[in-house]
């Protein structure tokens, strides 16, 4: 797919991450609190982007499981910042028209009495444009 390469470039651009810096130590995956929920593991994001396998990334569950807790960003010994890479992939999906991780009609049933505005706001920002 010819656009795969462009999309990979786009991800690098949005994230500001250079995946070539990765030395494949796996500390990100060792750190990630959402590891078990992810189908593509944090350390694999790097090679998916390097290989231009963006479709798989875009369709992965992991995109919507990353907590943006920055634990991987903090601990990465090579300053690769996998969390940023994942967010950029998510952005790429969200920015494509009509795609979203959260539909408005889903929301009412997700709410409860104590739910803080902050949660709704954050989720909206992460899941939608």
């Amino acid at each position, binding site marked *: 797919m010819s656009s795969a390469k462009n999309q990979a470039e786009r991800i690098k651009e949005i994230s500001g991450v250079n995946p070539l810096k990765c030395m494949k130590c796996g500390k990100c995956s060792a750190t990630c609190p959402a590891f078990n929920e992810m189908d593509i593991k944090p350390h694999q994001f790097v090679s998916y982007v390097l290989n231009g396998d963006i479709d798989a990334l875009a369709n992965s569950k992991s995109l919507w499981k990353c907590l943006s*807790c920055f634990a991987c960003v903090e601990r990465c010994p090579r300053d690769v910042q996998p969390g940023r890479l994942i967010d950029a992939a998510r952005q790429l999906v969200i920015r494509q028209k009509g795609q979203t991780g959260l539909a408005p009609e889903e929301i009412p049933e997700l709410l409860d009495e104590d739910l803080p505005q902050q949660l709704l706001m954050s989720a909206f920002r992460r899941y939608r444009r």
Partner: protein
Amino acid sequence: MKYTYYPGCTLRTKAKDLDAYARASAKALGFELEEVENWQCCGGVYPLGTDEIASKLSSVRALNEAKEKGQDLVTLCSACHHVIKRVNNDMKNNDDIRTRANNYMQLETPYAGETNVLHFLEVLRDKVGFDTLKEKVVNPLTGKKIGAYYGCLLLRPGKVLGFDNPENPTIIEDFIRAIGATPVVYPYRNECCGGYISLREKEMAKNMCDKIKESASGFGAEMLITACPLCMYNLNKSEAELPVYYFTELLAEALGVKEEAK
């Protein structure tokens, strides 16, 4: 001493306590929080994309207002703190973001990260001083074993937030000591509570919070304190028995101003 104060959306609604106790405590400690006029929501999460500008502007507005007043900008909610501090860092160090944000803002003098952003805890540590705080405590919470819950947003990325050692923080423990209680150090205090994921992934967030609470109880904590309404919400969803309070509530209690805040 006066600070520009950015409360944020949740402190006006679900987390009114967090805000009220902080204001009362500030008064007792001799500083004043002047709310930003017409503040807008920070967005809750920091936009990670290097090309996102519009979503950073509300932070820039608040930052600029503090700059014009010549005051430090104080936040209370961890998320607001995280977002505003990181945007400020961008405005200071990222030429591209600074230029583009200023193009939108059309300010008389462009904003370039001049404002100092402080979390309320940082005010206590760096401006008031924990020793002074200790002296002002009228109702020490002696004997209470308290676990500090930091979460992620206050600490990481450590290089940008410069809040505390992200892997072994001490600020809330020092705070706990200052109000006369005993801090309980436990390893999960800087692990994520699940954050915004709890909107849909209730189970996932619950599991994470269970782990945090179990770890804290295991080390003997009788309660947790936090600075973040979302952490509070998520932690409360866990059924593990361990009460969670806003740190400002205990502060107000120790300073003897809890009732005034009500």
